[in-house]
């Protein structure tokens, strides 16, 4: 084993890391934005409203992320209509295809997390809102969503870590993210163990930073629970 290759190619690995971080940040933010309406529609008692989100969530949670990426990147180009539409400049780029696939995927998982959090709020609080005469919008904006945000944090942190690990799949559609860059370097140097281990250490470091950030935010968000906080459910 010769770890001098890691030092030599470290700048390249950092380039890959930057691409990975962009992928994760964009898809997590976009996924979070899409997840809220999906979760709210999923909660609806009207089957016409909740049916579509149910199918959406079921599809994206029931199939591998790799299939979803290939469907977007290779699948969309099967149709003449897509190739001639104004969307083609975007769907031609592997980077944007990865963003689309990751966003769709993470929004399905995140919607389920949001739904769980909103439904975990005691019925009494909803009744209290009604008693003081809040409208539905007021109730969601002032009581339910801020409450849900606190409950959602641990599970949402897990989801971001999962997205971080999922982002490695971008390398399968020619994107030079951290994994893709590592594979390119290995093709040149033939030192799989050293370079893959280095990539693994970088991924570990990123996930530790994410975990640390979420610990801080959680502490802040749940500070009303006092010095001996009540244990919140932290499993997905």
């Amino acid at each position, binding site marked *: 084993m010769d770890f001098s290759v890691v030092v030599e190619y470290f700048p390249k690995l950092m380039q890959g890391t930057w691409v990975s971080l962009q992928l994760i940040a964009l898809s997590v933010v976009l996924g979070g934005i899409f997840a809220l309406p999906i979760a709210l529609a999923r909660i609806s008692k009207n089957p016409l409203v909740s049916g579509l989100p149910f199918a959406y969530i079921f599809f994206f949670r*029931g*199939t*591998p992320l790799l299939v979803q990426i290939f*469907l977007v990147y290779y699948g969309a180009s099967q*149709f003449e209509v897509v190739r001639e539409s104004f969307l083609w400049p975007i769907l031609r780029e592997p980077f944007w295809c990865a963003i689309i696939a990751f966003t769709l995927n993470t929004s399905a998982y995140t919607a389920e997390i949001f739904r769980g959090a909103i439904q975990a709020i005691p019925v009494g609080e909803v009744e209290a809102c009604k008693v003081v005469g809040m409208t539905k919008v007021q109730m969601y904006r002032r009581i339910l969503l801020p409450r849900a945000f606190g409950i959602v944090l641990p599970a949402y942190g897990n989801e971001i870590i999962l997205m971080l*690990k999922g982002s*490695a799949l971008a390398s399968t559609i020619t994107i030079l993210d951290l994994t893709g860059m590592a594979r390119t370097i290995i093709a040149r140097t033939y030192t799989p163990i050293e370079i893959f281990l280095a990539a*693994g250490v970088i991924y570990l470091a990123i996930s530790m930073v994410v975990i640390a950030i979420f610990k801080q935010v959680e502490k802040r968000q749940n500070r009303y629970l006092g010095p001996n906080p009540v244990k919140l459910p932290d499993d997905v």
Partner: protein
Amino acid sequence: MIDLSGFGNQLLIGAAVTVELSLASLAVGLVLGLLGASAKLSSVKTLQWIANGYTTIIRGIPELLTVLIIYFGATTVLMAVAGLFGYDEYIEIGPFAAGVTALGLTFGAYATEVFRGALQSIPKGQNEAAVALGMGRVRTFYRIILPQVWRMALPGLGNLFLVLLKDTALVSVVGLDDIMRKANIAVSSTKEPFLFYSAAAVLYLGLTIVSMGVVYFLEKRANRGIKRA
């Protein structure tokens, strides 16, 4: 009717490989999970460190990277070890073995946490009662602890299995002939990516639904002694 150009059969053969891979990894992962949980709960500090290191590293690294490290790295490591014993033929591990190792390690790391939670939820009195009845440690584990751990851990393990099932698609990257690779082959000869990746998606959905059914049945069986409020 949908025309799969004669590749339907191939996809089904791929599905069989996917099922084999996930069941083999499940077996490896369950053993690793139980060992990991026991190590985390043991009073020996070294064992705790090993188990903590194992779960932290595996859970922080992308599954794809684990598959790649095992597939490309295991050959080098195995040959180095074999070289110490004076064996210098070329050793290669196939994609299936690499897949079972990588996915088993991943499943084991997550299962460690599930089993640890389940083991900790069993009251100490149960152990003491077993000792009072004169049961040995092994017998206590098989008769008293394990059936209850199984019941507590099932929902968590079921979720992990669904994750594992989807992760098997990653092993196609190193050339295992599973659903995903069969779909890739079909795409390269028919130029109909959307059709074949959708077919793959439907197969995975089908496997997911079947697994959910099995988990539901197992949970119902495991909980038959419990009264529901």
